[in-house]
Structure formats: C-alpha cells, structure tokens
C-alpha cells in the first residue's frame, strides 16, 4: 500500500507541475506574435532610433504585426538601420508606407508605428528585403527641450 500512496503523490506532483507550466505558458508568456510564424524582412533607415531595442513591436494602428529583428549602423552613412520582420499575413503594404518610432505612454517602451501608404492603381508592394523610404525618427526629449529653449530665446 505504501508504494501505491507514493505513486499517487508523485502523480499529483507531476500534475501540479503541468498546471504550473500551463499557467506560465498561457497566462504569463506572450501568445500573440510568435517566432514560428512565417515572416518577411523589411529595412528602415532612421536618423535616430531613441530607445528602440531588438524584439520591440511593430504596430499598425495598435495591432502588433511584427518585431524588430536587429539594429545596426550603416557603415557608409552612419545612420542606424532597423531590420524588422513582419508576419507573412500582411504582405501587401504599398511602398509609400511610412515607419515612425513612437512611445507607448509617457515613459513606456518604444515601438515602430507603421503607417500604410495610399494604394494607387499601380502601386508597388513592399517585398522581402526592401527599404522603407519614408521614416520618422524617435523624439528625443532633450532635443525637444533644446528646441523649445532656443525658440523661447529667439522670441
């Protein structure tokens, strides 16, 4: 009988572990945009990326459609280049689309706000490996304050 009780308790232990694992998998970890979804890559060149980091979100109208894959400095013109991977589901953005670096909330994390351009009759679709031409850099608080002070002085 003791072995049966032991096995019962070990079984309960295993079930408890699976429950803990499920809690972590379903409630704690982000389920949205996962790695195994098929993606395509776009590049965007900014003047200043502010606090953007790899794994930051790419959003259209608040919906996350991709993530920042890597960030590096263009060795020729020294501008930061952001490599973003977008879900294959959304693969018909016109090449007039724009990307800007936005902040969620006052002190929140930064993300790329992607703005689909107007689709003309003969629009070109952004394909894998293309550069997004129209980009707006991150707002840097110090620059803003500097501009504000400068405009106050010149008045």
């Amino acid at each position, binding site marked *: 009988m003791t072995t049966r009780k032991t096995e019962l*308790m070990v079984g309960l232990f295993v079930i408890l*572990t699976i429950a803990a694992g499920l809690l*972590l998998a379903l409630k704690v970890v982000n389920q949205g945009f996962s790695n195994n979804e098929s993606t395509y890559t776009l590049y965007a060149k900014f003047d200043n990326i502010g606090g953007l980091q790899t794994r930051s979100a790419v959003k259209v109208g608040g919906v996350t459609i991709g993530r920042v894959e890597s960030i590096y400095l263009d060795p020729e013109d020294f501008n930061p280049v952001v490599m973003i991977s977008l879900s294959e589901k959304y693969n018909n953005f016109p090449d007039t689309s724009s990307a800007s670096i936005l902040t969620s909330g006052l002190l929140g994390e930064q993300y790329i706000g992607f703005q689909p351009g107007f689709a003309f009759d003969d629009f070109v679709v952004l394909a894998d490996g293309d550069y997004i031409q129209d980009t707006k850099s991150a707002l840097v608080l110090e620059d803003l304050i500097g501009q504000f002070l400068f405009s106050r002085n010149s008045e």
Partner: protein
Amino acid sequence: MNWIIDIGTNTLTKVVGIGRAFLMLTGALIAFPQWKNVRLTIKQIYVVGVQSLLIIMVSGLFIGMVMALQGYTILVDYGAEGSLGPMVSLSLLRELGPVVTGLLFAGRAGSALTAEIGLMKATEQLSSLEMMAVDPLRRIVAPRMWAGVIAMPMLALIFSAIGILGGHLVGVEWLGVDSGSYWSIMQATVEWDKDVVNGVIKSIVFAIVVTWIAIFKGYDAIPTSEGISLATTQTVVLSSLAVLGLDFVLTALMFGIN
C-alpha cells in the same frame, strides 16, 4: 616545513575527491537504464520532491507577495505600477525560482540525502549490499540522483508559478493594481524561450549540482556520527555556494551578452 607537506596533502585530497565524485556520477548514471529501478526512482521522487513541495510552495507564495509589496511602493511613485507584473514574473522566472528552489532543495532534500547515505555507510549497509553482489551505485545512488534531477526543475516551475500568483494576490487584490494590466504587460514582456526555458535550464543545472554534492558527500562521509554531521553541513554549505556561483555564470551566459 610541515606546511608545505600540508599544502600537498590537501591538494591531493581535493583532487582525489573530485575524481571519486566524478567516478561515482558516471557509475550511477551509466547504470540507470534498468527498468526494475524505476520504482525506486519514483519512491525517491516522492521523498525529495513531494515532501519538499510544502516548503517550496509556501516560500514561493511569500516571496511573490513580498516582491509585489516592495515593488509596488517604488513603482507607484512613477505611476508605473502596471510594470509590477513583469517585475515579479521576470525576477521569479529568471533568478529567484531556480536559485531559491536550489537553496531550499539543498537544505530540505540534500541534507537528508547526505545523512541517509552516510548512515547507510556507517552502519555498513552499503558493504552488505556489495556482499550480496548488488551494486550500491545502481541500487542506492542512481535512483536518488535521477530523482533529484527530475524533481528539482519541477519544484522550481511550481515555485515561479505560485510566486506570480502571490504577486497577483498582493498587487491586484490588496493594493489595487489593475488585473488586466498585471497580466497583459507581463505577457508583452515575458518570452517563452528566453525567460521560461532559460529558467528551466538553470534549475536543471542546479539540480544536477546539488544532488551530486549531496549524494557524494554522503557516499564519501567518514563513517562516524561526527563524520556524518560534518558531511551534512558541508553538503548545505557547498551546494548553496555552488548554486549562487553557478547562477552568476549562467546569468552572464544567458542574459549578459546580447
């Protein structure tokens, strides 16, 4: 000149100890695939895992609650109490879950393993097994080793989950953080492969080290009552130090370099 002799003797003893510990580990692990020993392993999972469950769950709950309480008082100054969820869950999954489980496991199960095997040696049960042509490495050491390695990651997972629920209890129910933002910001921050899996890898490493030290210290104990008490103390001290030291190395490897 005696101190030179002492240095030599001590170094040799240490190296011999490492060699014996490694031989014991390989002997125990190679001996595992024997299906009649699975029952022994399950019994040991009960002893080291199920019986540690209560202390693990209670400590997990309280650590989660304390972190929520402390984090809230600081985060609320910046209006960032929504970040309580990721703070509690990341620190539990990455660090506190594996480390505190490792420390508690060393104290609760490791010391018991050392004392049990040490007493078996002192009362010559291990020698009697050998007399009966039963390999004590297979019969005694292997099931305990595997039980520890299997049970501790499970305990660490439970610890983290309970801690996150404890943080929810204090943060959301008592201090009034919004429940939706507690979970949703946590979900936006925590990643499965980076945070959860790395935490599990950490706890597996700690499990191997703690169980190995505990069993070897018992197996290698001087077979007197003093020797067993010394071995038990050494188990707790050594495995706690090993857990904390390895934690730094693993954290540097996993999260330090991008």
